[in-house]
């Protein structure tokens, strides 16, 4: 939704113009944007996040470590697995616990499910309408029924995988420090194979579909940061790398990545060595393209986008390549799966600090926990991907706005929204009720 003044100001006079988006549509949560232009120059860009602060870090303090996966899952209804994964890996680091073999594989499988759900929703329902000229996925569905049906089926395949592993399709309940409360049988997992094979092929079509979209001409020289392990595309492990030489493990995250407060937003903004940076599918792909699964690698090469990705509008391509990767990886894990003897490894709490970074659908998700000898949380810190990308989005807009100054304020605001949606920002979770104008009442 957009609002703003019309662009009918006299020319040549020194002028101040404000492009305001009251509520940014098709992003997760509540956000708004304010850009001020004076004499043709961009003065201020403020991405305002006015979700109320959520205090998760504060109310984790005093809770038993075993409660953490279920509490942090509630931070997000779109990427609960990411919060659970960063939490359990950080706590396992604090306790000196290693989770390997089939349990490690199942965690990758769980993450595949979440990427599929989250990415398919964004690509088809939230982002594609921008490229095909529709105000919403619903309007787009009227003309592109087959494509939207395919997108919904892809998402559903992710839901089914997540439901099998996590007990339900949102806020899974099976994840625990040390492993899972229950692991699937081979038979259960193999029951999904046919659907996943269909979905893998549909994901190839998805990559081709979005690669064919016309992208606005826009280039930025990005600093990108992502996990980049040896030998696999990243989910849960690996050093954090950047395209400018950063190579650290999670315990050093806070030395290089710093969060700061800005007055106009309830979310913190994160910087890498003092500068904005990009996290998420474009960053991951740039640092890990060589470790894509075979079909995903082929499909990515076919798109001709190439590396480095300089146009943020190609994020939809990167996201689609990751959908394909996730289906291939899921099929690999299921094919090779040998159920573990136990659903989790023993965990003995000890006093200490643990940190971990995993790859949420939208990018790096860092957790740090200080724990006492009984496993009670003393301190918690969570750095989500959207706070990392927030400053980068502002910088994109700063560079992009001059291109749209000749448009009406309304059109310019819509163009800015499209930049923001490239990042798939996940601002928060909200309650759920119907907004409508009532035209008929029984009482």
């Amino acid at each position: 939704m957009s609002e703003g003044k019309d662009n009918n100001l006299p020319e040549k006079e020194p002028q101040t113009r404000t492009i305001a988006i009251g509520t940014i549509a098709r992003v997760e949560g509540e956000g708004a944007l304010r850009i001020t232009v004076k004499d043709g120059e961009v003065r201020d860009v403020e991405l305002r996040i006015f979700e109320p602060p959520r205090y998760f870090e504060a109310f984790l303090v005093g809770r038993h470590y075993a409660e953490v996966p279920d509490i942090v899952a509630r931070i997000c209804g779109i990427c609960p697995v990411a919060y659970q994964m960063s939490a359990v890996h950080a706590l396992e680091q604090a306790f000196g616990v290693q989770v390997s073999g089939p349990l490690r594989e199942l965690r990758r499988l769980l993450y595949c499910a979440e990427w599929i759900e989250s990415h398919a929703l964004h690509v088809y329902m939230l982002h594609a309408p921008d490229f095909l000229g529709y105000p919403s996925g619903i309007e787009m569905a009227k003309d592109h029924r087959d494509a939207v049906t395919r997108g919904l089926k892809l998402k559903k395949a992710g839901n089914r995988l997540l439901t099998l592993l996590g007990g339900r399709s949102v806020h899974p309940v099976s994840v625990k420090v040390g492993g899972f409360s229950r692991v699937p049988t081979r038979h259960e997992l193999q029951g999904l194979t046919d659907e996943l094979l269909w979905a893998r092929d549909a994901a190839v079509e998805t990559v081709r579909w979005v690669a064919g979209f016309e992208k606005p001409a826009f280039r930025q020289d990005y600093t990108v940061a992502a996990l980049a392990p040896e030998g696999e595309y990243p989910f849960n492990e690996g050093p954090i790398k950047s395209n400018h030489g950063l190579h650290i493990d999670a315990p050093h995250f806070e030395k290089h990545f710093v969060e700061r407060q800005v007055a106009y937003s309830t979310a913190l903004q994160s910087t890498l060595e003092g500068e904005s940076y990009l996290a998420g599918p474009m960053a991951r792909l740039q640092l890990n393209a060589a470790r894509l699964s075979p079909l995903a690698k082929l499909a990515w090469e076919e798109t001709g986008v190439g590396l480095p990705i300089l146009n943020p509008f190609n994020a939809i391509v990167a996201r689609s390549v990751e959908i394909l990767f996730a289906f291939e990886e899921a099929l690999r894990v299921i094919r090779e799966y040998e159920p573990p003897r136990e659903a989790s490894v023993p965990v003995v709490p000890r006093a200490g600090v643990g940190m971990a970074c995993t790859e949420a659908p939208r990018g790096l998700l860092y957790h740090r926990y200080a724990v006492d000898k009984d496993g009670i949380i003393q301190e918690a810190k969570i750095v989500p991907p959207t706070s990392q990308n927030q400053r980068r989005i502002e910088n994109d807009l700063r560079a992009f706005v001059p291109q749209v100054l000749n448009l009406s304020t309304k059109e310019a605001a819509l163009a800015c929204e499209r930049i923001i949606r490239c990042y798939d920002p996940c601002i928060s979770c909200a309650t759920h009720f119907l907004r409508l104008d009532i035209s008929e009442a029984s009482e």
Partner: protein
Amino acid sequence: MTEQVRREAIRVIGVGNAWRGDDAVGLLAARRLRDQLDSSIEVMEAEGDGLALLDLMEGANHVLLIDAIKGGGRPGTCVRLDVSTECRWGPVVPSSTHAMGIAESIELARALDRLPKQVVVYGVEIESVESGAPLSPAVCDGLDLVVEMVMKDIERTGCTNCI
């Protein structure tokens, strides 16, 4: 009317969030209706992902949806909206993925030609969505009222094509 035909014909779906005060009213109505209705009528509850509603409606001829609404009316007021043939909530442009509520899901189903023959929405005007709060007193009355409305609609007709 055999039980089998009715089972295929009518489906009641209560929508809401059990932990957000009055937003639970659709779920609570569904639970009460499950106790009161003939077991051949399917009663479902939908929390969270709005898109899931598309699948929950699949295969039913008549869907009766109960949800919390914010329409500016007095809390507890109930409205009945037959949306089978036309969009009746103004332009539907979702502003958030989580807020992909029933209006968006129904319009998406319509666009994809997946809308059941008849879809009736029963809305209960709500007051507060405070986390962990019980239903506010006015919405408790609304709960009684909406359950009565749905029961009457089903009982009045006793058939599947004229709810």
